[in-house]
């Protein structure tokens, strides 16, 4: 689905593609830095201690989430500057792309990159022979991973919109809400392999974020009804 989003909404406009790739790049850099920190922490600690390792992992995850949000903020700043440049350079004084579109594209960029990194090795392994969960792990590993990744990609998209909106209008609580949601989702994934604990709340959160982003983007229940009724 995320890829479909990409094709239908982004692939047409070259500027959006660039913003997408730049968004992916920013996510990548944030991942790099966070894994650097984690790596240093692991190397500096005792490799035999299981609990410590788990604790370090949790710390790494949280830190990574915070870094991701920080980079989203940096990206927002960069895009603001870019918009000003674009406005100055355009013929009729208005930018070819609005900040909301940029927010959307940036969110998709982040999401795609994070999804790709989460899934792609799994996919590659899935192509080969083997049995899922042969060592007593859950047999639904691939399925749940796929769903989790999808929900994460969508969440990143919505968070992008919410985050940028919050930055635009200086509503700090929106930004804080995004960060908290991100932390929650990551934290929930610690419940794995108890999938009920992680997947269901994540989807609920995603629905909430979707509705919020939709409202922020100017939609309303009426729009939705009209859209659905017109089509069918």
């Amino acid at each position, binding site marked *: 689905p995320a890829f479909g989003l990409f094709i239908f909404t982004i692939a047409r406009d070259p500027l959006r593609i660039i913003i997408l790739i730049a968004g992916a790049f920013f996510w990548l850099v944030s991942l790099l830095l966070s894994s650097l920190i984690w*790596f240093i922490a692991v190397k500096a600690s005792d490799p035999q201690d299981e609990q410590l390792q788990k604790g370090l992992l949790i710390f790494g995850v949280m830190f*990574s989430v915070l870094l*991701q949000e920080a980079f989203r903020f940096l990206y927002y700043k960069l895009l603001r500057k870019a918009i000003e440049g674009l406005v100055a350079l355009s*013929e009729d004084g208005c930018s070819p792309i609005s900040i909301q579109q940029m927010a959307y594209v940036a969110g998709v960029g982040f999401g795609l990159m994070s999804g790709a990194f989460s899934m*792609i*090795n799994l996919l590659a392994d899935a192509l080969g022979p083997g049995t899922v969960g042969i060592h007593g792990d859950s047999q639904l590993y691939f399925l749940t991973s796929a769903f*989790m990744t999808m929900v994460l990609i969508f969440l990143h998209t919505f968070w992008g919109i919410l985050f940028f909106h919050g930055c635009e209008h200086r509503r700090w609580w929106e930004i804080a809400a995004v960060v908290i949601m991100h932390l929650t989702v990551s934290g929930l994934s610690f419940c794995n392999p108890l999938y009920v604990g992680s997947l269901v709340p994540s989807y609920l959160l995603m629905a909430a974020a979707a509705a919020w982003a939709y409202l922020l983007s100017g939609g309303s229940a009426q729009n939705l009804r009209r859209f659905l009724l017109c089509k069918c």
Partner: protein
Amino acid sequence: MITFMNNSDSEEEPCNERTSLMSAESPPIPSYQDGLQASAAGEAQAHRKRRAGSSRGPSNIASGEMSGSGVPVRENALENEEEELTLKYGAKHVIMLFVPVTLCMIVVVATIKSVRFYTEKNGQLIYTPFSEDTPSVGQRLLNSVLNTIVMISVIIVMTVFLVLLYKYRCYKFIHGWLILSSLMLLFLFTYIYLGEVLKTYNVAMDYPTLFIVIWNFGAVGMICIHWKGPLQLQQAYLIMISALMALVFIKYLPEWSAWVILGAISIYDLMAVLCPKGPLRMLVETAQERNEPIFPALIYSSAMMWTVGMAKPDTAARGPCQQTWDAAEDGREHLRSPSHAESQMSEMRSPVPTHPITSLEELEEEERGVKLGLGDFIFYSVLVGKAAATASGDWNTTLACFVAILIGLCLTLLLLAVFKKALPALPISITFGLIFYFSTDNLVRPFMDTLASHQLYI
């Protein structure tokens, strides 16, 4: 750097490819002027006129000839419009380059992942005489550095040789050399590649069929690249030969040497294009002075320059008369601001009411593009291919390098739009790519693996 096709005797010659980026406005195209019955693409003309009149940085060709062509006064008025349209068209050009680079990388990665031949070590090229099978780390490092020195000096020698030939107008020799090398590439490497692919998928093919297929492929390729052909076909061929060349490099360069060579090449590219005495720069300037296209077969251009005969607006428009720059000319691709040409073109066209040939306007508008040296393609693909081949983190590393290279390309194009002269395309991208490769392989991979094994998500 010119990385390829120019080999006279071995595949290594390619190293001479230019890796700089060039904007589509190449000097070779005779410019078209409003009201003047000059032939050739008005774009170049218009563009040049602008450049001549503009106080902006040195534009390659423009400065040269345009001044003499009776530039209309309206140049100045249009200058501002140029700037405005810069960014607007800039994005389009970036995408025009993204797509072929992406395609090339995809082909290389797909081949590396599936065909085992290209990851086996079957010896080394003579350009990298030192082996890396030594027991100690220091020795290995030393050998790779020595390999790099040898390779770079070969490249420098070939490039200087090429520039000298160009300067002294030994065109026949250069053309012959290019034809020979592209011939070899098209036939020999394709044969090997096809053989390996067929082996991998266990498809049987008899020799006559193989012969016919390769003959057709090679013949059409030669025609397309060195003469005329549909733009897309030519682009496809250029991408394919870049991919083939990159595969050869990946196979035959030893591990550490490959990385050191990549780093050294980007430094070399930086110097060769920007230093006043750099060979690449001299090549471009000479080409511009003479108003000629740089050699075919060495440059990828994203749009074709059509020379439009003013006398016959209707019929002549569609013919790609002057392939100067588009036919894979060896010229270095200098990154010139692509938007200029386009914007200028369109600007030029619209305020010319008197010009009878209005139909040509649309035709020429599509033709601006950016040019990128094939060597750039090759080295980008080598980076990504090596990442795919040797990284244990597999796809993550490959993906990271891919994004890094694209971002580097973006930045380079941005710089091109700012500086408006030929720029080396390698350094930024390769630097990013290398940084990301090493960091992803060593830092991110353990992190992601641990996360994945616990099924945690960040």
